[in-house]
């Protein structure tokens, strides 16, 4: 867990997040591979959720037991989500369930507005965010790259905003780089995390090179042929992208510009 150095710490809501790659825990081939992937990724946050369970499922919850053990030894933070909620009231209830179950105030707030695209419902999202902030939650809302929505979410007290790159699970990468770039430029002091739609390490690196603070993903790692190796690749990409952002990338040019000096070139204008 060394991706968030003291000089470049990611601080959200007064808490230092120990990594700029955040990782979901769903869809891995096995609990063991999930655990190895967590180890390889070194995530700042690990996302989980709550669902109805029978007594047997509560008893034999191997995935959760492994995640719980990982959290205790790694320093990664737990980020419960409200996935599957379609209204503010549902999301508020689920967030409170998660807080009681996991004893954390962090919540990844999801309120879905369209089942086909899994696009957030901006109105219900904002309403839920305002209530949850008032209830003492540290709210990280999953949203679109809409500048006004992101500003409103920050205004009601969200600690960060998490716009999508592309619809959840598509792996299509940054579908609206212009809008995301403008969001970054217009909200320079906000913590902005790219959440959902990242499919390749290069896309995560692109987001980080654009100056976003972290990247959250799940499917791209879990559904890779080798999830553990892919987790490591994403970790490297996020680190590299962050370093590139800090280093300052060159300004693009329309025309070629020779890198080797022409001065002293033999036969030049002879």
């Amino acid at each position, binding site marked *: 867990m060394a991706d968030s150095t003291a000089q470049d710490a990611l601080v959200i809501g007064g808490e230092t997040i120990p990594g700029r790659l955040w990782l*979901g*825990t*769903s*869809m*891995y081939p096995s609990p063991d591979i*999930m655990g190895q992937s967590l180890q390889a990724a070194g995530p700042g946050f690990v*996302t*989980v*959720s*709550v*669902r*109805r*369970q*029978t*007594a*047997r*499922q*509560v008893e034999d*919850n191997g*995935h*959760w037991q492994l*995640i*719980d053990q990982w959290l205790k030894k790694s320093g990664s933070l737990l980020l*419960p*989500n409200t*996935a599957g909620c379609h209204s503010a009231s549902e999301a508020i*209830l689920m967030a*409170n*369930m998660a807080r*009681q*179950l*996991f*004893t954390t105030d962090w919540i990844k707030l999801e309120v879905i507005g369209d089942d086909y695209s899994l696009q957030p419902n901006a109105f219900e999202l904002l309403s839920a965010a305002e209530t949850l902030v008032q209830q003492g939650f540290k709210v990280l809302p999953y949203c679109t790259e809409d500048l006004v929505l992101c500003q409103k979410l920050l205004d009601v007290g969200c600690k960060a905003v998490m716009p999508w790159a592309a619809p*959840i699970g598509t792996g299509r990468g940054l579908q609206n780089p212009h809008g995301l770039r403008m969001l970054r430029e217009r909200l320079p002091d906000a913590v902005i995390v790219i959440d959902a739609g990242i499919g390749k390490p290069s896309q995560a690196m692109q987001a980080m090179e654009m100056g976003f603070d972290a990247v959250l*993903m*799940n*499917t791209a790692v879990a559904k890779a042929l080798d999830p553990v190796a892919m987790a490591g690749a994403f970790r490297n990409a996020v680190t590299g992208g962050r370093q590139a952002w800090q280093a300052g990338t060159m300004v693009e040019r329309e025309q070629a510009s020779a890198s080797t000096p022409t001065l002293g070139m033999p036969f030049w204008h002879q």
Partner: protein
Amino acid sequence: MSDSFNYWINGEIRSSQSPLTLVDVLVSEGYLDENPVGDEQAAGESQTQATGRFQAQATGRFIVALNQSIVAAADWAASVVKPDSKIDVVGAITGG
């Protein structure tokens, strides 16, 4: 005329002929051990001790909502399951 009534747990219907509390339901569904310490000790167990025991069994494993309101473990014994009550028992799952 029967006094039986229906209630729901995690979306599945159940029927009872006698009044129930949440503790009764959670024990019958297997979430709580009614008597993990043995008959003799359980017989002398106070309400406070029982509540503490149930709380310990649930902490970090599951929580309970009755009609979409979360019920703390300390209140389970006093929470009456009325006809058509809807009980949700939720635990941790993986998520993205």
